[in-house]
């Protein structure tokens, strides 16, 4: 009860971005308890998917939200991360730690190359070049017949020495640890000297140049970090899905990541995770709700999602995190408190 009261107080004061982030991360740690007692094990699976997309969106948000670089090709890094597992297993390498290191390394190197080439441009050209690279990689994997081509390849859950991922909840907590580490990493980065310089570059690149710094170095570094985070998400995604196909890096997933970020709050720590929660819950429930009203349209839940997204963008300046922030919530709560 006191906890609830404390929470209400926090909300009343306006939840700060990083507090919200850690509340959500803590919530995911406790969630299996809920599913256990409520006997809803299926929801663990949904939570894992949310965490995986959340991690990827957090990675993208570093360049999109903090650096102002609209990369439309980050699904490629998720895909590369996932294929690192598939291809490793194809060659008999089943150690999960190796998969993770490999995908972080490969995505970092690829991010460096793509970033180096794409970051010479800005605006619409940057969007198109990142999309073009992602499409190149997509079709590369479509054409790689030995790795399943279009049909993809099935994957065994990776081997983490003593941790057997086929045990219930082991994979869940592996993903949770990744989420917590990425959250911690990003919290440090965005407040650090590097992070504030990156945000300053988004605000005014020429002033940063006039301070004797080379904006490109900061942009490329952030691009590489975000590629590595998406690679990590992809690696775990492969173990979760036990299957990988080029579909995982389809360009619509890059769009999905952007929608998640915009929905949750661009350039905020909690936004991508909150966005992932809301997006995937809507994906789960909107078809059901729509099916109840108009069964023929159940599949087209995006009809409802679109207007919702527009509303959040229009009224929640700064996405859902913005909505939770001071202005709106404290007004509502202050009124209630006053009535009491």
């Amino acid at each position, binding site marked *: 009860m006191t906890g609830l009261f404390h929470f209400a107080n926090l909300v009343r004061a306006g939840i700060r971005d990083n507090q919200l982030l850690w509340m959500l991360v803590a919530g995911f740690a406790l969630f299996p308890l809920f599913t256990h007692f409520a006997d809803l094990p299926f929801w663990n699976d949904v939570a894992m998917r949310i965490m995986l997309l959340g991690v990827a969106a957090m990675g993208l948000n570093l360049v999109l939200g903090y650096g102002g670089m609209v990369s439309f090709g980050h699904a490629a890094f998720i895909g590369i991360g996932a294929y690192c597992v598939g291809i490793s297993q194809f060659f008999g390498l089943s150690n999960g730690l190796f998969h993770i290191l490999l995908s972080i390394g490969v995505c970092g190197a690829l991010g460096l190359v793509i970033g180096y080439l794409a970051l010479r441009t800005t605006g619409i050209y940057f969007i198109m070049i990142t999309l073009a690279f992602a499409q190149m990689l997509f079709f590369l994997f479509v054409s790689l017949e030995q790795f399943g081509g279009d049909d993809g390849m099935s994957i065994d859950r990776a081997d983490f020495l003593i941790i057997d991922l086929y045990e219930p909840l082991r994979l869940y907590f592996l993903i949770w640890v990744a989420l917590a580490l990425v959250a911690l990493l990003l919290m*440090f*980065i965005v*407040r*650090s*000297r*590097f*992070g*504030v*310089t990156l*945000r*300053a570059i*988004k*605000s*005014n690149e*020429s*002033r*940063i*140049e*006039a*301070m*004797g*710094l*080379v904006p490109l*170095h*900061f942009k490329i*570094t952030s691009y590489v970090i975000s590629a590595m985070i998406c690679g990590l998400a992809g690696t775990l995604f492969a173990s979760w899905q036990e299957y990988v196909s080029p579909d995982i890096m389809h360009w619509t997933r890059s769009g999905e990541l952007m929608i998640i970020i915009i929905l949750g709050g661009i350039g905020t720590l909690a936004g991508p995770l909150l966005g992932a929660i809301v997006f995937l819950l809507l994906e789960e429930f909107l078809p059901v709700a729509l099916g109840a009203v108009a069964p023929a349209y159940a599949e087209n839940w995006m009809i409802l999602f679109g207007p919702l997204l527009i509303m959040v963008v229009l009224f929640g300046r700064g996405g859902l995190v913005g909505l939770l922030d001071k202005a709106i919530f404290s007004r509502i709560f202050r009124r209630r408190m006053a009535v009491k």
Partner: protein
Amino acid sequence: MMANPVLDLRDLNKSFGALTATNNLSLTVMPGEIHALIGPNGAGKTTLIQQIYGALKPDSGQIFLNGRDLTGLSVPERIRAGIGRSFQISNVLMDFTVLENGIIAEQARLGQSFRFLRPAFSDANLIEGASAILDRVGLLDRAHLPVGGLAHGDRRMLELALALAASPSLLLLDEPMAGAGPDEGQRMTEIIEALRGTVAILLIEHDMDAVFRLADRLTVLVEGSVIAAGTVAEISQNKVVKSAYLGDED
């Protein structure tokens, strides 16, 4: 014996198609002096500043700063070599507070911008350095205001503070009084006056009262060429300059 110049421009040329923006231009700025560059609109003043700053490449000629050839260097390299600049249109970090602007400049000065761990905006050392940067232009009492809410004149002050942050040996001021009200212009003049002797300044300014008060030497530019150079007294008596620029009425 003459001291060595801080800035030494040798035979700079720059054309945009048929338009000659800089025509065989040579100019020196001596240590600690305020050197004003005046001339009618389109005389090539900002184009010249851009070439010194490194945003434009001269077609031919050389640029020396403290005896070092800057001609092939990029903007950030020139900044690190000792150039500071304020722009014609205020160029500050609008999404941050005044203090945060100072902190970002301070960490750039210290070469610490590539660190990932400790938070920057709560770092005591950076705050101290940033405060010193802001104090120089009298903005310390407004340190916690967002720059977006700052008066125009204060933004210009902040920009000057950022340009001075790294203790440059040459300061390029492109119309620091532009758009300022009379009081703001007066305040800016006083602050620039106080800088005399501490840093060499190349100043572009249309406010002739400020120019005559501040400048140790003047160079008059018309259509990319130097038509006169000298002290304030010499230039104000110069017939060619009078007819070309200052006007004949007095």
